[in-house]
């Protein structure tokens, strides 16, 4: 392997730059998907962004759980998971509400957007509860390994 040209402080700074770049890409993709959805784009039009976002998210999720890391500030409990899922459900409700409104589907706007929002809330809550469980199991395993 080639010698690293950077010393430890430069390496730390580069990691920080890469970290910012990663989150910029993540939220940029989320914003692009949200805007395209609001404008009525179908799945084929945003499939590329969606695949990249999923790869990025799944990689981050697996890497974090493998290393026993959840979040800097948020706790993996039911209260926080419910709150985050509510926010996700609300965001999806608003986005689809706008999309249906712009596409002149006036009669179905509220019930359909509400159904999609509630489904998102439930799916997010289930996914967060499941990953919280995986995180706790992994953390326990890593702590047991420290005792050996």
């Amino acid at each position, binding site marked *: 392997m080639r010698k690293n040209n950077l*010393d*430890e*402080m*430069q390496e730390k700074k580069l990691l920080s730059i890469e970290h910012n770049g990663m989150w910029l890409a993540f939220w940029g993709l989320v914003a692009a998907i949200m805007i395209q959805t609001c404008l009525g784009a179908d799945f084929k039009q945003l499939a590329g962004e969606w695949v990249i976002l999923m790869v990025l998210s799944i990689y981050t999720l697996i890497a974090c759980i493998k290393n026993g890391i959840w979040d800097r500030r948020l706790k993996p409990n039911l209260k926080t998971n419910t709150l985050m899922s509510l926010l996700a459900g609300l965001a999806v409700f608003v986005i689809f509400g706008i999309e249906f409104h712009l596409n002149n589907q006036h009669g179905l706007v509220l019930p359909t957007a509400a159904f999609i929002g509630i489904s998102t809330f439930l799916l997010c809550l289930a996914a967060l509860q499941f990953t919280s469980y995986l995180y706790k199991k992994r953390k326990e395993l890593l702590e047991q390994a420290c005792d050996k």
Partner: protein
Amino acid sequence: MARNLKIKVARAELDMTQKALAEAVGISRQTMNAIEQGEYNPTIRLCRNICRVLGKSLDELFGEENEDA
């Protein structure tokens, strides 16, 4: 973080420039300057390398009394 004047003094005793010390330790001058200015907290491995080059102990260069400097 407080400035690390002890490194600067030890360097001066050996008539060594910041650039020469950085090269001897194997880091950039930018990093050496940040350590002396107290803007970067080096790892224990780097601290030991700096001590070895300057012929000082960890306590002499990075001891707690530096906090007051």
